[in-house]
């Protein structure tokens, strides 16, 4: 492969993968903070306000990381993907500009108020600032997904006389069929991350025996939200997303599943290693006929394998696509199991005392990040060899006036910078977690009665 092109691809992949560690946490946390603020308003208990303030601190640090690593993303369309930008800017520039105008202004303005203005705003005003930060971050997610959905399944455009891509229908762009399930799937994924993080830190406090009632509150909210979100991840959002892929990117589906041959009653592969030389899956462990059923609701349905498509339409890194997809689905299944058991124990009232299970919850911390990242790798590697599916190949999109040497220079720069940012982030978040929410100086009357 052309080395400049490979570097441009890796440059974007690296910076966007790193960036998305933070928004997946903040978008989900924004929702959980709104829930905490709502509980504070409803019950009048200061406990929930302090919980919200504690998560506000974690949110603030993560949000700052998301902002500083997010700005390079918008610039890199132009710096590293000039040919793509020139051709498609008139279409996807719309959604990216709308993100700036509609969500970033909202988010940044009210985050300032949320972090700096609690006393002056009063409880209701502060609730509104939290809500508007939530709204802004979820809108931002929508515009980014709309942009990505157009690249996955371009709609609402026509080709000009010189082959340029012209926007033809604004609503066709925003209400693309691909957007709905991708957006739902992605946002649910961010709730999974945030609720696992919240439950995990709550479990840490309970195991440590520190920070009083906060551990219970965090575990309770984390488990309830996490159980709902984990289930929604599979059905209906994951299922809907899968059907879109089956319908519009069948070759991607075949590659994701490691299905080399077209067959009736195609199996779902649990484990196995794609061998691209022999064109087969090594050491397969399969559930027969399940893929046919999941895709077409018929056990003996015919599912197209890679051999049904010309090779120049195959995604160019099938093993990576296959593994990232299987990691996502495998982890997602584990999440459902862990969260349903936790919810059951919570309902029975044994969760807070069950040290072994609290350990399980604690150790789940990194996995939602891995699952979300694997999901995005599936989406992006699955779109290859196209940058705009069926319209423009990735190899035609890069900035050919920027040499491999310059790209490598900035790639190394970003790697160094992000390594430092990671250390800094972990250091600051660890401090906040150790410090914990402010303890209640005197237990409030109703709390004392409850005990």
């Amino acid at each position, binding site marked *: 492969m052309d080395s400049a092109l490979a570097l441009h691809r890796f440059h974007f992949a690296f910076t966007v993968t790193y960036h998305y560690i933070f928004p997946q946490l903040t978008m989900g946390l924004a929702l959980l903070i709104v829930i905490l603020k709502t509980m504070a308003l409803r019950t009048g208990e200061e406990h929930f306000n302090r919980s919200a303030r504690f998560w506000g601190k974690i949110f603030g640090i993560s949000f700052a990381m998301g902002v*500083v690593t997010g700005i390079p993303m*918008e610039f890199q369309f132009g710096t590293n993907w000039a040919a793509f930008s020139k051709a498609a800017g*008139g279409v996807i*520039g719309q959604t990216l*500009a709308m993100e*700036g105008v509609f969500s970033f202004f909202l988010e*940044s303005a009210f985050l300032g108020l949320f972090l700096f203005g609690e*006393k002056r705003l009063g409880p209701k005003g502060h609730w509104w600032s939290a809500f508007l930060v939530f709204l802004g971050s979820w809108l931002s997610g929508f515009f980014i997904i709309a942009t990505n959905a157009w690249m996955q399944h371009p709609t609402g455009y026509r080709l000009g006389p010189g082959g340029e891509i012209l926007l033809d229908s604004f609503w066709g762009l925003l209400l693309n069929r691909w957007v709905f399930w991708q957006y739902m799937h992605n946002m649910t994924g961010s709730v999974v991350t945030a609720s696992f993080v919240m439950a995990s830190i709550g479990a840490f406090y309970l195991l440590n025996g520190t920070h009083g009632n906060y551990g219970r509150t965090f575990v309770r909210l984390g488990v309830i939200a996490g159980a709902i979100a984990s289930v929604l991840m599979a059905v209906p959002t994951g299922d809907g997303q899968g059907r879109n892929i089956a319908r519009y990117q069948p070759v991607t589906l075949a590659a994701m599943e490691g299905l080399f041959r077209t067959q009736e009653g195609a199996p779902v592969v649990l484990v196995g290693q794609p061998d691209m030389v022999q064109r087969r899956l090594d050491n397969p462990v399969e559930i027969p006929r399940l893929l046919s059923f999941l895709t077409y609701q018929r056990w003996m349905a015919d599912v197209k394998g890679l051999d049904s498509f010309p090779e120049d339409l195959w995604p160019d890194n099938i093993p990576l696509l296959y593994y990232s997809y299987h990691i996502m689905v495998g982890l997602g299944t584990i999440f459902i199991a862990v969260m349903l058991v936790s919810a059951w124990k919570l309902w029975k009232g044994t969760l807070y005392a069950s040290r072994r299970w609290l350990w399980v919850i604690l150790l789940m911390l990194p996995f939602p990040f891995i699952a979300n990242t694997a999901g995005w790798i599936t989406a992006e590697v699955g779109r290859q060899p196209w940058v705009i599916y069926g319209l423009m190949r990735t190899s035609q999109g890069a900035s050919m*006036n920027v040499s491999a040497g310059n790209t490598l220079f900035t790639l190394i720069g970003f790697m160094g910078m992000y390594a430092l940012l990671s250390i800094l982030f972990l250091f*600051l978040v660890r401090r906040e977690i150790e410090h914990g929410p402010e303890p209640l100086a005197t237990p409030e009357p109703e709390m004392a009665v409850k005990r």
Partner: protein
Amino acid sequence: METLWFLIVAVMIAAYVLLDGFDLGAGIVHFCAGRTDSEKRQILRSIGPVWDGNEVWLLAAGGTLYFAFPGLYASSFSGFYLPLMIVLWLLILRGISIEFRNHVDNPVWKPFWDGGFTLASALLAVFFGAALGNVVRGVPLDASGYFFLPLWTHFGVQGDVGILDWYTVLVGLLAFLTLTMHGALWVTLKTTGELPARTRRVAGFAWTGVLILTGLVTFFTLRIQPQVWNNLTTRPWGFVFPAIAVAGLLGVLRYSHQGRETDAFLASCAYILGMLTSAAFGVYPYVLPSNTNPQLGLTIYSTAAAPYGLKIGLAWWIPGMVLALGYFVFIYRHFAGKVSLEEEGY
């Protein structure tokens, strides 16, 4: 329609420079005027709740440029590859320096981020100025509308130029001094104690430098980019833009002496606005002139998106901006007046 979007993008970039300009200036002032920790915190608090929103203007302007003039976005962002990446790194350093400084109360931690804040702010000011200098001077565009510039070559303005030559560095210095003045006036306006007396002095020094460099830069601009004088003579009403700049600069001096802090800051805004609009007016209808063959320069017409997209863009841009301005009015009112350190954020 293309001209309208040219104006819109220009206004958004100007809003970014005016607003984030005082954040950058505060970063520079932070080093030369903030002595005690409480003074440094006052400076940070004066921009704390707003800097992020101010920076959004850069993103919103970039996004708008992207969809309204995709050809310009693609060509300029890839051609200015290295300086843009350096700007991104500096924006990262600036952002985390502001956000993370007050998380740890430690005599090693805080000065480290103070240094990062000032260094990043100062270099950003120079780079933004140099970028404007490049746009005015022109770049070696090829027939397909692309170019690539190294950071520097021989520092001359003729032939094989780099991003940094003596002219663009001069514009960078002017930007640095201008934002120092702008930020110093902002901090004067927002703080109490001994600090404002010191920042007023900083603004005074910077003002003298701005005056001298404005003269020099104007002189050289007219020699390097003949389009500017052409535009001024064919449309003499355009002289109103440099006039605004001059009036703003004089206003800064006058209001500072009278102790009218708000007016002095607004006059500084007028100066910056006058300079930016003069530059935009001077190169119009080019958005990226060529320094080798004027025929190859990118104009608003050759780089704009199709009419349908531009029309539909207006339909959401106007309500979107009304909302955004609403937030800004609300938040600046909320944090109006001198900062108080009693109510700490988190």
